[in-house]
């Protein structure tokens, strides 16, 4: 039998704060609307999702967007996979070069700052096809991830004052327990993300 959360003795007494039926009806409508905005986004995405859930979400989009409720809550699902980082190499006008990585475990502190930068590589990695995917599919996916990578490249060039920057996505090898027991490790998978330069208008 489901039971209510117990109230303290003070709260159990008849309280002066009682809402009229009309107020309760209006509040109930608001509650139902809010709960719909909480429940529909994870039902409607990320894939797989039903067409019905996606359709039901449409009228709720204004409130879902305004309150930032469009979350899937699929933490570490469906399977915890390998981690990713973005390695970059920058060339300067004087011929010098500089290398870096996003996120940088050594310099990105505190940890929350590291995690915010870590999300850049993770979210871009979610859009870049893994190795072995046919070239046609790889080409088609470029429109999804390249605008993000261009912005990252542009930010790095602005930040460090470089001329050109080359980025590559590194998928860190996730060892199996047996490999750890044998003290073995596989190689990281590297996917080129392109070389970018700032154009005259300041866009990469």
């Amino acid at each position: 039998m489901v039971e209510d959360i117990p109230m303290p003795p003070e709260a159990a007494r008849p309280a002066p704060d009682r809402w009229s039926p009309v107020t309760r009806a209006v509040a109930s409508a608001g509650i139902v609307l809010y709960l719909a905005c909480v429940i529909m986004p994870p039902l409607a995405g990320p894939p797989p999702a039903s067409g019905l859930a996606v359709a039901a979400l449409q009228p709720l989009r204004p409130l879902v967007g305004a309150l930032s409720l469009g979350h899937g809550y699929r933490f570490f699902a469906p399977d915890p996979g390998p981690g990713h980082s973005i390695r970059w190499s920058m060339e300067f006008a004087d011929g010098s070069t500089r290398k870096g990585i996003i996120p940088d475990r050594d310099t990105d502190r505190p940890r929350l700052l590291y995690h915010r930068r870590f999300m850049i590589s993770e979210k871009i990695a979610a859009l870049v096809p893994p190795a072995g995917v046919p070239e046609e599919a790889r080409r088609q996916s470029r429109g999804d991830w390249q605008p993000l990578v261009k912005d990252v490249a542009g930010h790095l060039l602005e930040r460090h004052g470089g001329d050109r920057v080359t980025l590559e996505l590194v998928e860190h090898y996730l060892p199996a327990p047996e490999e750890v027991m044998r003290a073995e490790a596989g190689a990281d998978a590297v996917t080129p993300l392109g070389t970018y330069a700032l154009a005259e208008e300041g866009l990469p």
Partner: protein
Amino acid sequence: MRTATTTADALRVAAPADRGAHTSAGDADPAFREASRARSGQGGELREWLAAWNAFWFTPADPLPLAMVRICAGALLVWAAFVWLLDADAFFGATGWQRPENVWRMNDQPWQWSWYFVTGSSGGPRLLAGVTLVAAVMLTLGIATPLAAVVSLAGLISAANRAPLNVFGFDDVLGMLLIAVAIGPAGAALSVDRLLAPDVTASRPTVRANIALRLLQVHLCVVYLFSGCGKLLGASWWEGTALWGAAANVQYRTLDLRWLAWHPLVTNALTLATLWWEIAYAAIVWPRLTRRVAIAMAVPVHLGIGLAMGMMEFGLAMLVANMAFVPAAVLRRAVGPFLGTARERS
């Protein structure tokens, strides 16, 4: 309370009786009388549903749990805003990790608003992140709490909508907490507002406090349910090896758990316990008998994620959300000395 069987029987009887009623000859018909009773039974059940709905949402509640959620969520937002400020131009500026026009194009616009979209100058992002920080400090202390709560929520949403490449579960959960805090009388207890304007009725149970806490409770159940169901799509969760995938991920790792390689059954047990606790949470957190287990499990799960995977802010935010299920009487005992001081001063 009528059972489902009784209701089904009543519905079966109701149909011929309705015909009898239309002929005006049914008053003397025993079937009609039975159907009338059944119809009143239906109405009774509807009334029971309405009464349950009203009791669930509109019973006045002690605002103390909401006040404690406010303090914790405010403190987490203080920290989050401070970290945003460490690199505000990169997160929110015109030449940041993502340019505003690209974010605008990728978001579900015009709904996903952000006050950072209207800042172009180099000082704008810092100023607005600073506004969030100040609002979060005020929220934590309970200064002008209703205004501070709304500005804090606006600051969090603005950050999430402007820098979608940099947000993660911590921001989702913090938003859930701040919405509840903004809806309810979160400054009614343990606040500077309460100290400066002592009102003997301010900390009494209110319907708004109940609605805010109920929304938080239900939202938390939704989070756990979808988190658990999402995991069911993955083979590693069924196999009990998913925890290894998280422990061996060098990008997340802050605590070396590779010793789990030698103890696969421990990995299985931890993985399956996490999975089934998440899925069951929405069911077992409501009955008193199992509530303590549901909440107690949250502590090692979320602190474990925080310590081992470097996501302490996310873990703490989830634990704060679980606080919504802790009875007010328990919290009142825990913070009794502080409440006593407040009462004396008032």
